[in-house]
């Protein structure tokens, strides 16, 4: 009967409610952030960035590839920033107000805002370094890792889900004739292509804790109703047998 007992035991377990959600993860606001960098303005290319926050110290790890590789025979500089204080989104083509086929940095600002920090390769990381092409990553791809200090406004934007990473610098050949002739809206000595956004990614907190992808239904019994029926029949049968035998014993 030992075996039967073992088999009956799960009957009790059925009664226990099958909890649906897993333990709620500690709702700590994550200190790790991620951004997928997608192309804008006919750019090809793609990338990803993560930000690990420790107080106001932010370790930025970023990799992108597929951008314009050279400019006048030199590696193409791609200035890049954490933009803050707007919708926390990347612009769509509808942001192209002057109809030249390019969403300029200024036209995109309604979506991603102004510069909060410059992701330069060395030296100044403030908004003041925003268009300094000498300390911008250069070439068609970059693996970037740097720990920088963020100011209060940039930190607040990160935490309120409104920070956006933007990498600038388009291949002029991919632009319309009109756009090819235009000057940069930021640095008039440069062509429009040089400062216009090429990759853009809204920064979001990484998911907190683990993932609730199970209920445990396959860790107990699947066919609990059938099992219940079996249990019921077993109890009824045993009861009937006992009753019959007892009646016989009493009579005897």
């Amino acid at each position: 009967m030992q075996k039967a007992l073992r088999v009956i035991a799960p009957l009790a377990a059925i009664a226990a409610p099958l909890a649906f959600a897993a333990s709620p993860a500690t709702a700590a606001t994550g200190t790790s952030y991620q951004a997928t960098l997608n192309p804008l303005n006919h750019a090809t290319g793609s990338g990803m960035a993560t930000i690990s926050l420790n107080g106001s110290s932010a370790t930025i790890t970023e990799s992108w590839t597929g951008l314009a590789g050279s400019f006048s025979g030199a590696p193409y500089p791609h200035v890049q920033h954490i933009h803050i204080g707007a919708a926390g989104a990347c612009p769509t083509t509808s942001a192209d107000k002057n109809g030249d086929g390019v969403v300029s940095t200024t036209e995109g600002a309604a979506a991603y805002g102004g510069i909060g920090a410059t992701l330069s390769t060395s030296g100044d990381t403030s908004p003041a370094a925003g268009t300094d092409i000498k300390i911008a990553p250069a070439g068609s791809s970059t693996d970037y890792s740097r720990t920088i200090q963020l100011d209060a406004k940039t930190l607040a934007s990160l935490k309120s889900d409104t920070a956006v990473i933007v990498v600038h610098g388009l291949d002029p050949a991919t632009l319309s004739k009109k756009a090819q002739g235009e000057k940069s809206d930021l640095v008039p000595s440069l062509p429009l292509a040089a400062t216009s956004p090429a990759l853009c990614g809204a920064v979001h907190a990484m998911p907190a804790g683990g993932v609730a992808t199970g209920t445990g239904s396959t860790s107990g019994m699947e066919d609990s109703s059938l099992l219940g029926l079996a249990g019921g029949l077993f109890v009824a049968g045993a009861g009937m047998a006992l009753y019959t035998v007892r009646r016989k014993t009493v009579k005897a």
Partner: protein
Amino acid sequence: MSSDHGWSPGRRGGLALAAVAVAAALVLLVVVLRAQVSAPEPQQAGRVDTPGDSSGGRHRTHGPTAQTAPPLGPSKPVHLSIPAIGVDTPVFPIGLASDGTLAVPQPGPRLDTAAWFENSPTPGQPGPSIIEGHVDSVDGPSVFLRLGAIKPGDRVVVDRADGRTLTFEVNAVRDFLKSEFPTQLVYGGDQLSEPTLRLITCSDFDASIQHHVGNEVVFAHLVHTSGPSGPASS
């Protein structure tokens, strides 16, 4: 009741009925036990760093394919198959829940399909693309029931909306306690230039609290791309 030792028809009938009931109960039990399925426990295996990692020059020690394919532009995943464990499922985007955790497929037509985390790269873009699925649901076994049986070297095939078919190769399988979930390693990591894939499901059911206390994470990297939008790149 005429005989002390004989069985009256009534008693005999009662016992027979009881026997039938018990026999039926046993048959049902056998049926239930035979229908019982359980998720295989993941076996920790492989290296989390992808073969394309040039640091350390150890990339020849990995699985059968010591190479990675170059990254692609964005396009959402629409279908996932893992022939080695019989997975074949549509894929839908999913976001964060209000408590900041990764949302999971809810009861309804998508409960037992895989879900791509929409804040992660699409498969083929640089960095880890996240696809999750339930190991089981209130309905019983779910799409990633057998994810624990996956092994390094197994292939994971993702179809994207742009018509490309991407083949990933598993390089590692890991089991983490949810309480110690390595967020940065799973959603980021230090190989953001590599197009990689993470498959996530639940593991380590704790009967005492009726919860899975662990997450299984499968680490895979892109080895081949085919489809209409460009030449094969592997």
